[in-house]
């Protein structure tokens, strides 16, 4: 399974999500104006939204290449359980997309004038939440793997599923930035992440089996 991860890393698209994240964050002040009070108020939400969209952008790559050259069929006939394959795919997506996003988020927070108290909680909430985004996204990618115009449909399917994660993640970052208690959203976000990691690979694997039939 290590070589899949290496292949994903070498396969390009690594910096694409990051650049997208950067551009979204840079564009926001142009859209809403440069008042730093306003920016620091909406910074946690913007950073979360940007991370979510950047995640979405790279989802169709999870299975598309392997589907085209047939290695997905090979993986499916290998003795590995499909659930394992799906989980590792999600992990690879997180390592190549989610983790870099988490790491650059504080830097972009400076651009948006994020309050000092918020940096730790923003980073922590993204670190907790992005694995859920990857796992949910893998489910969406598995649903649309064989389709010609899958990209748009993928966004339509995955975005509603992202709602709870986004709410709790952004809420946690916002409360952290404003100095409130963050225990509740922290626990709920962690719950969502653990729950999706534990259960959703089964759904993704089932869907992938149907698509490979």
């Amino acid at each position, binding site marked *: 399974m290590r070589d899949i991860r290496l292949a994903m890393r070498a396969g390009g698209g690594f910096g694409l999500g990051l650049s997208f994240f950067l551009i979204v964050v840079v564009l926001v002040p142009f859209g809403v104006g440069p008042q730093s009070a306003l920016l620091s108020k909406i910074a946690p939400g913007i950073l979360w939204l940007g991370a979510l969209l950047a995640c979405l952008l790279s989802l169709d790559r999870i299975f598309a290449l392997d589907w085209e050259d047939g290695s997905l069929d090979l993986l499916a006939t290998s003795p590995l359980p499909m659930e394992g394959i799906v989980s590792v795919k999600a992990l690879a997506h997180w390592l190549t997309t989610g983790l870099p996003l988490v790491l650059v988020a504080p830097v972009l927070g400076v651009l948006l004038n994020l309050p000092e108290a918020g940096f730790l909680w923003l980073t922590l909430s993204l670190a907790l939440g992005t694995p859920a985004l990857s796992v949910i996204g893998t*489910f969406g990618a598995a*649903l*649309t793997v064989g*389709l010609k*115009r*899958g990209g748009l*449909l993928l966004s*339509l*399917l995955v*975005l*509603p*599923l992202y*709602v*709870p994660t986004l*709410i*709790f993640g952004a*809420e946690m970052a916002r*409360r952290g930035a404003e100095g409130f208690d963050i225990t*509740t*959203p922290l626990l*709920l976000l962690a719950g*969502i992440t653990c729950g999706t990691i534990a259960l*959703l690979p089964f*759904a993704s694997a*089932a*869907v992938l089996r*149907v*698509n490979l*039939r």
Partner: protein
Amino acid sequence: MSLNSLWEYANPKKFIQTTDRVLPWVAWSAALTLVVGLVWGFFFTPDDYRQGSTVKIIYLHVPAALMAINAWMMMLVTSLVWIVRRHHVSALAARAAAPVGMIMTVIALLTGAIWGQPMWGTWWAWDPRLTSFLILFLFYLGYIALWEAIENDDTAADLTSILCLVGSVFALLSRYAVNFWNQGLHQGASLSLDKEENVADVFWYPLLVAMAGFVLLFIALVLMRTRTEIRARRMRALLARERMGA
């Protein structure tokens, strides 16, 4: 004629035969109860002392909202039946119910907005209920889009039913998340007057009739659409066979 179990209706032929007889009754009683409920509600109930005549939109709003949620529940059940027992009628019924449910969601949102404009002074507020209905609408949209996108019928049925199951879990999660989110924004804003609480009997009975009418209407529409799907599929099969023969 004795029926041993519900599953006999899973036979498409049997389903068509039975609904042939049942459908006119359902459709006509739906029309009747709807007319009675709406006319009673619109013309023969007093105006509310606080809300004036705007209160009467409740006879469209509440039943539509009820059916919007119940249509998804029905899709959930039929999807489960498809996954477990692989009856085609079940999958087709889920497919038939989705657009109806989506329209009900739209009706509920629109009538809510029309009522909210004079009452709350705004067309839209990010109230938990409103927001979760908007999210429900998005789920319907994704579900229908997935059905449309996949050519193979069985694959589409499989994928959409799994999406329906996963979606249900996430829709519930979103419901509670949205509750939490709005409380976090403005503490306990009492924007939504709780409707059930202060409905007097004068309003309650016509509302009941209107709700029954919407339920019947939904059943009639779903039966009709399911029959259309079955026949369309049979026709495709016949055409394919003809092409093979020629």
